[in-house]
């Protein structure tokens, strides 16, 4: 693998992440770096373990082995314990000795926001409310103050609302702010999911198949949109995607997974020329 020197600081680093469910190794020894302001792609055939890797980063799953480093600090680390000690099939057993876990909401507070493969908007709420939920964690008023509308609560609510409006303007959803989230067309729902993630003030954004179900025109727009928010919100982005135009057009670095294992990484040009990748996608010579 061609190791390109990147002088930017690493904001997200996965070291030897392995996720084993029973006897199935869903993610096998994944090593991945995301640098500041970089857009990194994670590709692989269906069932390669891409979303599982996302879930390991965001605290939905506890990885069986390995560590996740966010902004230079190890926040999630685990090693095979209990029954898994003998059942473990992955590599690097014994390299990690600490068991650090973190709940998804804490990971979000650290500045890692995500979107979902199958859109998960809050169905019973308007577009504006969807975004405002994501700002809830940053408000400091207690439940009593908020219920009885203390001065602080009213001010916080006001700034929250204004900020949410501002954000919706930036993602072209301002006109739809009072519509129910589920009444939006599909493409706009995707945009809203990203807007909602942005409302948590992230420094790292994880996008799980943002272009799924989009036509070429829409994916082209999405590509530009992702580039724009990266600059505007000073983000580092890790994205899973199947649309090769999107991935090849926007990512600076690509990691390829197959059957949980990492089979290649490099720039889009390197990946396109990589024989292991072509074999994984198109099947090798029998």
């Amino acid at each position: 693998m061609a190791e390109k020197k990147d002088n930017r600081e690493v904001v997200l680093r996965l070291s030897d992440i392995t996720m084993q469910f029973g006897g199935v190794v869903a993610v096998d020894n994944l090593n991945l770096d995301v640098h500041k302001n970089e857009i990194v792609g994670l590709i692989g055939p269906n069932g390669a373990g891409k979303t599982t890797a996302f879930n390991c980063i965001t605290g939905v799953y506890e990885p069986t082995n390995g560590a996740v480093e966010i902004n230079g600090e190890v926040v999630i680390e685990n090693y095979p314990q209990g029954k898994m000690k003998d059942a473990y099939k992955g590599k690097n057993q014994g390299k990690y000795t600490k068991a650090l876990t973190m709940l998804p909401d804490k990971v979000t507070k650290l500045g890692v926001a995500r979107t979902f493969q199958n859109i998960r908007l809050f169905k019973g709420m308007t577009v504006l409310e969807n975004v405002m939920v994501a700002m809830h964690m940053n408000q400091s008023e207690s439940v009593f103050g908020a219920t009885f509308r203390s001065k602080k609560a009213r001010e916080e609510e006001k700034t929250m609302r204004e900020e949410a409006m501002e954000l919706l303007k930036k993602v072209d959803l301002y006109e739809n702010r009072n519509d129910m989230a589920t009444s939006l067309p599909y493409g706009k729902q995707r945009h809203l999911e990203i807007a909602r993630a942005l409302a948590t003030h992230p420094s790292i954004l994880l996008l799980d198949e943002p272009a799924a179900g989009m036509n070429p025109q829409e994916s082209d727009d999405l590509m530009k949109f992702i580039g724009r928010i990266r600059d505007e919100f000073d983000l580092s982005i890790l994205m899973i995607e199947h649309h090769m135009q999107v991935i090849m057009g926007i990512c600076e670095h690509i990691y390829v997974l197959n059957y949980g294992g990492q089979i290649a990484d490099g720039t889009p040009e390197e990946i396109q020329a990589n024989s292991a990748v072509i074999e994984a996608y198109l099947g090798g010579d029998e």
Partner: protein
Amino acid sequence: MENTLSKKTKNVLTVVAIALFLILVYIGDITISPGSSWKMMITVIEKGSIFALVAASMNLLNGFTGLFSLGQAGFMLIGAYTYAIFTIPAKSHNAVYQYFDGGLIKWSLVEILEDKIGIVGHYIGMLIPMIGAGLLVAVIAFLIGIPVLRLKSDYLAIATLGFAEILRAFFQWNTLGPVTNGSNVLRKYATYDNAIFPVVVSGICIAIILLLINSTYGRAFRAIRDDEIAAEAMGVNLFKHKEMSFVISSFFAGISGALLAMFQTTINATPFNTVMTYEILLIVVIGGIGSITGSIIGAFLFTAASEWWLRGLDAGSWLGINSSLMRPGFRKVVFAILIMLVVLFYAQGIMGSREFSWDSFLAWIKGRPEAIKTWPARRKAKAAAKKEARATKAAARAKAKAAKDEGEAKKASGEKLFTALPVSDEVMVFGKEGK
């Protein structure tokens, strides 16, 4: 909408409506003689407002936080007992706790405060145990919530239901007799003397629940209801918010328990069983899961139907109809059928997840004459649409049958049934660019 009211007008309307209602209740309770059949209306208002409060508190959990909890009757039980125990007059203790040497607590908060500061103290002496009942229930809910709220959906319902049942048995335990009077009734405790009391207390509590739901915490609750995983990913601490909702809901269930104790004037653990929980759940479902307005309407309708309008069915004569079928218990049969009809034709409940607003109310009123006028036409249109749908369905069936026949024919003649699927888009693109 073309004619929306200004915020000020709405506030004035709300205040006037509430004041008018309260005055009517107050005067009604004073003037209507106990023998009058209209007295039943006052009873319905009292009991209805108490059930409106507990239904609203259950809706906060089930409809707004998405926690399917069935512990409400148990929490009401604690509330009712807490209130009653601390307000039984000292001289009545020997009569009430006749099997337990006059009980453990020999004083009444109401009497103590009344002696000190007069009539105001009397009411403060009632309010303190009532709020104390709510707080005690909240503390118990907090402790129960720690293990129980890790469960999801049906499992949570079973755990809370089981807890409520255990409580019922616990309060009837003879060893606790000096406090709870074992399986005997508690009576002679202080109660209110005008129907306005439960209406005002319930009203304030429901207003607080509404304020909570419309605050940023309420938004977080609704986010949890809509999608737990997404809510967590947006930084909402699941456990903290679920616990918060559970504790607050239980607090208000405790208050309503205390009010119910006052309404009934005697209290016993037996009626606080699963049937009561289901009645509350029924009110929530009939009114609309996720609508406080619905819970209030549902509570009054339910109470009016079961206590007042359908009473005649048990007594043998109802709306001038006399039948041998109408004997004690028949009311419940009719009631069950009514509920089925409501659930069938208002699947979302009366209000769905909408709330009352003056704008929509006025629009609804204004739309009535028009709606009544156009009703025959609409019915015709509906019938026509139904006919058309039936026709389309029949056509589709015919088409499907034709296609099937064709397939059978092809199969018989040995033709290929399917053609090969095209290669998917993503692979094509990759292949083109990659090579």
